[in-house]
């Protein structure tokens, strides 16, 4: 009996020793930002790593004070430097929540930034609220983030994904005014279901005379689309909306192109921009693509945007996709808020509450467009949207877009306080388009 207890004690000590190096006391000179992105698995290369790259690059530029105007000469976050701690997001949502809790409790990070998978953020939001940790979501697009509760510590610097469905519906109805039929191809998980819901509701508002044909729901990352393609070739909808993501688009297009589905059906990929540089000539001209806002190839031509793109390409030898822009503008929001909070109370490092007060409702020029935190009490951005037609420029060997159209923020985002689905069902009342 005694012996046994001793065993338990030995075991507990062993566990304690194994765990000891975990609890390193963090020297509090530098700010520490945890950055959530897929670091393993299928999405790591196409959307995860670009986000980490961009966040790293912007933090370094801010630390060294090398950002161009209008942020030139202002070094650091307030006066502090920051460092980035990448955290893998390619886990089941509940495990991401546990991981975020561990990151905050053990590493005492100053903020959580990033998160790109639709929905993973929903899982860890209760954790950051409970632990009172400033969180800036860069992408994670589900409208439920601010619709299901009052968030004190959470900000999101990109529009929610509903805006993409509306953008696509507006673009499609404008480009094809005599549209006769449309269908869908949306993978069987929350982002796919929500995207189709938003798009089809918006279409119902703009073209009440049309009934959608079949919405195909292949399994998440099944990569076997031969049967779906056959069925679409039989049904021949004039247009089809797809929220396929990254590698899924690549596999689908590879399988669709030889069978010329794009000749009978106008294809719309709401996140097609992620894959265009990888696919180049293999992505057929004429496909409609989006980038979850005016990012990447749709970025507004500003000096700040050019600086971002040139530096990114020079350093990482690839074109920045929208997750990189999203990540960069989330870090920039932190800088602006820290600067503002530090200016309000000079001589001391701003605490979380001061940074949150400073961040509410800011409007700032970012790398793709102007970000306005104008929704949900100044926590949620409503930014403009963009869409265009893909074209591979044979002369330069570069993928481009033509017929780009921009949509004002109030044209595609629900008014403050209105739930996305309610707004769509009501027929988008009060939408202000230019």
């Amino acid at each position, binding site marked *: 009996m005694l012996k046994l207890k001793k065993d338990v004690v030995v075991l507990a000590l062993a566990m304690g020793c194994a765990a000891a190096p975990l609890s390193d006391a963090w020297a509090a000179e530098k700010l520490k930002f945890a950055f959530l992105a897929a670091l393993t698995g299928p999405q790591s290369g196409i959307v995860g790593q670009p986000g980490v790259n961009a966040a790293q690059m912007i933090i370094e530029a801010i630390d060294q004070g090398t950002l161009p105007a209008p942020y030139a000469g202002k070094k650091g976050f307030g006066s502090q430097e920051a460092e980035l701690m990448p955290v893998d997001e390619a886990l089941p*949502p509940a495990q991401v929540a546990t991981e975020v809790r561990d990151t905050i*409790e053990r590493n005492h990070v100053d903020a959580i930034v990033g998160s790109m998978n639709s929905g993973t953020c929903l899982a860890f939001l209760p954790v950051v609220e409970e632990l009172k940790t400033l969180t800036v979501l860069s992408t994670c697009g589900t409208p439920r983030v601010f619709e299901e509760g009052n968030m004190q510590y959470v900000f999101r610097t990109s529009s929610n994904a509903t805006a993409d469905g509306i953008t696509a519906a507006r673009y499609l109805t404008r480009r094809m005014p005599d549209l006769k039929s449309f269908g869908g191809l949306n993978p069987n998980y929350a982002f796919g279901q929500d995207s189709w819901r938003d798009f089809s509701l918006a279409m119902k508002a703009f073209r009440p005379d049309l009934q959608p044909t079949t919405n195909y729901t292949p399994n998440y990352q099944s990569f076997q689309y031969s049967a779906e393609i056959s069925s679409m070739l039989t049904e021949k909808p004039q247009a089809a909306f797809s929220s396929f993501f990254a590698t899924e688009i690549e596999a689908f297009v590879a399988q669709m192109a030889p069978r010329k589905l794009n000749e009978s059906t106008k294809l719309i990929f709401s996140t097609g921009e992620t894959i265009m540089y990888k696919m180049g000539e293999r992505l057929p001209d004429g496909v409609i693509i989006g980038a979850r806002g005016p990012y990447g190839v749709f970025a507004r031509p500003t000096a700040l945007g050019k600086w971002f793109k040139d530096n990114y390409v020079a350093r990482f030898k690839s074109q920045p996709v929208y997750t990189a822009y999203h990540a960069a503008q989330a870090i920039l929001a932190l800088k602006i808020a820290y600067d503002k909070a530090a200016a309000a109370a000079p001589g001391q490092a701003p605490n979380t509450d001061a940074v949150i007060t400073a961040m509410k409702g800011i409007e700032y020029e970012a790398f793709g467009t102007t970000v306005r935190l104008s929704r949900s009490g100044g926590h949620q951005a409503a930014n403009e949207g963009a869409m265009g037609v893909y074209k591979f420029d044979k002369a330069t060997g570069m993928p481009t877009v033509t017929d780009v159209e921009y949509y004002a923020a109030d044209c595609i985002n629900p008014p403050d306080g209105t739930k996305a689905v309610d707004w769509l069902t009501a027929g988008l009342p009060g939408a202000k388009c230019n």
Partner: protein
Amino acid sequence: MPMPRSTGWLIVIVFGGVALGGLGLPAWMISVGLSAMSQGIVVLGLVVLMRAGLISFGQGLYFGLGGYAVGVLSLEFGITDAFLRVIAAALAAAAVGLLLGCLLRRYRGIFFAMLSLAFSMIFYGLLVKNQNLGSTDGFRVLASTFAGRPPTGGANQLWLFLFACLLSAVCALAVHRYFRSTLGWLATAIRDNETRVEYLGCSVNAAVHLKLVLCSALAGIGGALSAMTVGHIDPAITYWTTSGELVFVAILGGAGSVFAPFLGALVFQVVHTLALAMLPHAWHVILGGVLLASILFMPDGLWSAIARRRERSHG
């Protein structure tokens, strides 16, 4: 000293000690302990099956049912009491275990494992299709209350930790008692030779059915605790990878004692946390390496090392 009685007391002492220790532990250790106990309770159920030679690759079904029972209770009825939540989760999981047990009890070996897997994947599919429950995104689970009172001042995790210690002790005691009953002793006999058990006048299928209900209820309790700890529930909890992870923890701990599942789960959670922090880009390598080493070098699980010393000290 006769062992049966002392093991019962040891359960009370160990989990009581853990609970007391919890008052002084840093927050992140509380979190790891909570995850380990939720997982440990589920694995305890797997050990009940393992003793009869059955492995379930679909335990995620009952784990998920427990979690979703808790989630739906707060979503639809606003019930947040921790005790009610756990009871409802256990009942829901046990009910489904009872129902599916009518089919599963006839199966053995790999086919038992795969049919369990099929059921859990169909449940996963139903959850993914259900947009009201948030599909793959899942939904939030409100914080627990204890006898009508919400924990104050951010003490939520600590209260849950104490609650988890209590639950773990109760479950461990119950399973310990079961192991010492006639039906419990029958497990080894079933694993070794079913025909002989039948000749003894016992119904093997009925005994297996009871084990299924027991292990489903335990998985439901673990799922409830997990949902309350995380504050969120989503279908990934029912996916085959979760079930595979649970089997792994069962093998890692071993089937030698009711403590083994908790030990296995604690080691697993620590390794998982460490691996994610040390190699965020390649943490599967560490996890897989530890798994491989444990299978190669500790064939009877972590507990065997302790059990061997225990034998020596009593021998």
